[in-house]
C-alpha cells in the first residue's frame, strides 16, 4: 500500500507542474515570474525531509523541458537544494517554525541564484547585476512566498507519513 506521504508528493508535483505550465505565464508581477516547481521542491523538502531526490530531479527536468533554458540546470538546482534543505532541517530542527522558514526563504533565493549563474554560464549575454536585480531577487522572493504558502499544507499532510516536523 502506498504511503500517504508519497501520494502527497506525487499529487503535489502534478499540481505544481500544471500550475507552472498553465498559470505561471499569467502571474507575472513586474520582472518576477513564479516558479511553482522550485517552490514545491523546497517546501516539500522542508516539510518531508525524508522524501528523497527523485521527485526534485524529475520536476526540475520537466521545468527545463517546458522552458527554453539549459536542460538540466533546474534539475540540478532542485536536487542539490532539496538535499541540502532536508539535511539541514534534520540537523537544525528544534520543533519551531523559525528554522523551516529560514530554510525555505534561503533555499528559494539560493535556487534562483544558482539557476541564474548556470543560465549565464550557458551563454546568456546579460550582466550579473542585471540578472541579480532583474530576475534573481524578484523571482526568489516570489518563490519564497509561494513556498511559505505551500509549506503548512505539505507539513500537515506530510505528518501523516511520520515526518520529523509535525505541524500541530
Amino acid at each position: 500500500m502506498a504511503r500517504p506521504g508519497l501520494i502527497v508528493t506525487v499529487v503535489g508535483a502534478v499540481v505544481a507542474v500544471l500550475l507552472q505550465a498553465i498559470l505561471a505565464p499569467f502571474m507575472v508581477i513586474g520582472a518576477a515570474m513564479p516558479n511553482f516547481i522550485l517552490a514545491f521542491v523546497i517546501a516539500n523538502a522542508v516539510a518531508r525531509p525524508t522524501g528523497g531526490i527523485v521527485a526534485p530531479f524529475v520536476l526540475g527536468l520537466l521545468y527545463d523541458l517546458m522552458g527554453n533554458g539549459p536542460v538540466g540546470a533546474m534539475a540540478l538546482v532542485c536536487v542539490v537544494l532539496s538535499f541540502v534543505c532536508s539535511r539541514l532541517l534534520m540537523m537544525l530542527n528544534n520543533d519551531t517554525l523559525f528554522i523551516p522558514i529560514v530554510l525555505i526563504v534561503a533555499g528559494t533565493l539560493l535556487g534562483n541564484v544558482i539557476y541564474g549563474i548556470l543560465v549565464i554560464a550557458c551563454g546568456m549575454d546579460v550582466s550579473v547585476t542585471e540578472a541579480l536585480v532583474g530576475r534573481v531577487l524578484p523571482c526568489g522572493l516570489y518563490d519564497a512566498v509561494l513556498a511559505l504558502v505551500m509549506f503548512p499544507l505539505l507539513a500537515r499532510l506530510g505528518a501523516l507519513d511520520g515526518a520529523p516536523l509535525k505541524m500541530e
Partner: protein
Amino acid sequence: MKERTGQSGAHAVLAPLGVVGSSAGAMAEDAGTAAADSGASEETLSALRQRNAELTELLTQSEEYRLEAERLQGLLGLKETYAIEGVSGRVIGRSTDAWNQTVTIDVGSAEGVETGLTVVGPSGVVGQVIAVQPGSATVRLLSDPQSGAAAIIQSSRAEGIVRGSLSGQLTLQNLEADAEAKVGDVVLTSGLGGSYVKGLLIGTIVRIEGSAGDGSRTIYVSPNESAGALEEVMVVFDATGVDVTPRQSSSASSSASSSASADAGARSEGTAGGTEGEDRG
C-alpha cells in the same frame, strides 16, 4: 393661403400651450408605460433580464471580433506593404520561465514553418522561430536577451545590432562611433547575416545616452510591436518587396508605422531612387 392677423395672434398665444400640451402628453405616455411596467409579470422581467444578458454577451463578442479584425487588418496591411509570403498564426502560449521571452504559435512544420524564419506582428518584427513542431512553433521574441537582429537606422543608414535584455528593452549596439543617430529615427532590419528578413520595421529610437564619437553610447529602441498584447503573428517565408526604404531627411520624425506606409507608397510608385545600392537584397 395667407394667414390672417387674428389667427396669427391666436397662434402666438396658443403656441406655448401646445408645448405644455405635448409635454403633458409625453408625461401621460411615460406614466402609462411605467404603470404597464410595474404591472409586468415576473416572467416578463426574467425574459428581459435574460435578453439583456444575451445582448451584453453579443456586444462583448462583437467588440472582440472588431478588435481581432483590426489586428488582422494590421497584419494584412504589413503583408501587403512588404509583399510578404508567409503564414499567419495565433499565439497559444508564453514562456513558462522568467529568463526567456518566447511565445508559442499554432502553426508549425505542417504549414511550412522552419527554424530561423522571421516573425512579424501587425506593426513590426516580433522575433524569430527557434523550434518547430508539426502543429506549433516557438518564437524567441526580439526583446529576449539572447536575441540579436542586424539593424539599420533608416535616415542615416548606420548599421548595428538590436539586442534584447532581461527587462525587455531593446538597445542598438555595435554602431560605428561616429554614426549619426537621433531620437525618433526609425530602425529596420538590415538583413545582414541572413537571420532576419531585410527592411522590416523594428521600432524607433527613444533615448540616446552619450553622443556620437562616444564608444560607450547606448541607443534605446522602442519596439513597434508590443509583445505583451501579441495575439496574431505572421511567419515570413519571403518578402520580395522589402528594402524600398528611401533615405529620409533628418527632420523626419514621423511614426514608424506611417513610415512603413510611406515606404509602401514609394515602392508602388517605383521611386526608390534614394536607396543605396548596397541595401538592395
